[in-house]
């Protein structure tokens, strides 16, 4: 098992620590034909799933009035940058309840103290 762990560690990336409820903006490389460009997707992280190299996180945002969710692999080489723009204060590991909320109710409280 050890050799496998070593291999997996080698493919891991440095990412800023973020939690469920935080607002993040994810810059991802996108290939369009020949050209490559960077697209940013910002929203609330509503869940993290899996562990090690297989870990993924789900980001939800409201785009032109329609809820959009995207799942990113945490250690994908296509992710250029993950920026945490706001710390959220939540009591749940998965914020699926946000899907049925609208407007003000779909907001996440901001954490008022600085996280260690």
């Amino acid at each position: 098992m050890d050799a496998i762990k070593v291999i997996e560690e080698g493919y891991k990336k440095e990412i800023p620590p973020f939690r469920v409820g935080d607002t993040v903006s994810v810059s991802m490389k996108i290939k369009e034909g020949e050209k490559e460009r960077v697209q940013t997707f910002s929203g609330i992280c509503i869940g993290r799933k899996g562990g090690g190299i297989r870990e993924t996180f789900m980001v939800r945002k409201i785009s032109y009035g329609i809820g959009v969710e995207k799942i990113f692999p945490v250690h994908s080489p296509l992710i250029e940058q993950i920026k945490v723009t706001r710390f959220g204060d939540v009591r749940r590991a998965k914020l699926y309840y946000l899907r049925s909320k609208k407007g003000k109710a779909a907001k996440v409280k901001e954490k008022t103290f600085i996280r260690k």
Partner: protein
Amino acid sequence: MKGILGKKIGITQVFAEDGRLIPVTVIEAGPVRVVQKKEKDKDGYETLQVGFDLIRKEKNVTKPMKGHFRKTSSPLYRFLKEIDMEGFNAGDDIAVDIFAKGEKVSIVGTSKGKGFQGVMKRHNFSGGPGSHGSMFNRAPGSVGASASPSRVYKNTAGPGNMGAVRVTVKNIEIYDVRKEQNLMLVKGAVPGANGGYLIIKSALPVAENKN
């Protein structure tokens, strides 16, 4: 032909540069020692006998094997196989780097034993309906005709022991070779349980496209 012996360590996933997750099997391959070089005039054919997985305690080796290792003045190995490869002599070590990234190989292993299994799992019979009063659920059904031939043909599929047989998987791509750790990453699955012994040979040449 190139070949090496190895041990299956396990399966994981790895990111390709374009972001795809690729399933890989990690194999501890070699280093392998040439225990004996068989020669045409002495043994009737030419090949290399190679050994893998050192035995540390002498008491774990049977007497006949001890005799063989003494005669060839080689250390004791658990896994001995013949590989037709040129350019090596008795006593030489063969390392993983005889293979390179991107090469195609055939991998031989012993599949996981499944025990005594019925005909649905073992031979992919479709079985009968599960309910509605059906009394024909997982049974094999008819195995032949009546008075003629008045026997069951040989090789008729039936229940029995499944798995734990030698299985070859052909044309597996090598994803990475790491010489310092004697590791080989191979795309996809490989027969057998973790810790099982494997023979890794270069793939057979592909028949040329007839177009």
